């Protein structure tokens, strides 16, 4: 299974844009890149998904370069409630398995 690598933690302040980068050098042709958010004592929640170029929804943007070996989750104007763990994972459409890495712990301060 293709693995992902993310920074262990990041700090930010309210109102700033936060960019979290994920490396996935061995991404397969059929893999989709997916990001989840997890608050303490809750299950992860889907944020955004993409295959290539840029995807944007109401909460985040996902930037994927042409070689797809990395991706960047962008959170515009974060607030205290964005403090959470963010996971990048690859949706292996061939085998249907979904494995989570260690995630990035984002701490937003006032």
């Amino acid at each position, binding site marked *: 299974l293709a693995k992902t690598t993310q920074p262990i933690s990041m700090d930010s302040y309210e109102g700033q844009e936060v960019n979290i980068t994920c490396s996935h050098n061995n991404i397969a042709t059929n893999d*989709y890149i*997916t990001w*989840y958010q997890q608050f303490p*004592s*809750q*299950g*992860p*929640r*889907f944020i955004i*998904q993409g*295959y290539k170029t840029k995807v944007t929804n109401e909460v985040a943007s996902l930037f994927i370069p042409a070689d797809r070996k990395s991706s960047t989750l962008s959170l515009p104007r974060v607030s205290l409630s964005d403090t959470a*763990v963010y*996971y990048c994972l690859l*949706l292996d*459409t061939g*085998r*249907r*398995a*979904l*494995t*989570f*890495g*260690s*995630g990035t712990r984002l701490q937003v301060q006032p």
Partner: protein
Amino acid sequence: NAGVTQTPKFRILKIGQSMTLQCTQDMNHNYMYWYRQDPGMGLKLIYYSVGAGITDKGEVPNGYNVSRSTTEDFPLRLELAAPSQTSVYFCASGSVPGAGGTGELFFGEGSRLTVL
């Protein structure tokens, strides 16, 4: 909307006991997953299923068993509980892109298991 329902939410087991964690989804998803999450760590895939009658091992299957007799239910069985199985267990269901779905996983609220 019920979504993914897990029971029980909390359970304390003695070493060597067995139990089943129940998971039910009402979204007609073909794909279902069981994860465990130890304190401060990421989620580890235990077992997954791509449809009724089909299951496959994930990263940490030892000590667990699953079955998938219906689309809705995906129970996780712990045989001979050990302290190392103390964890929070999450069940999830979803679809995959290209199969008429979005690929989004929906998670249950989790089952906190302690083995003493």
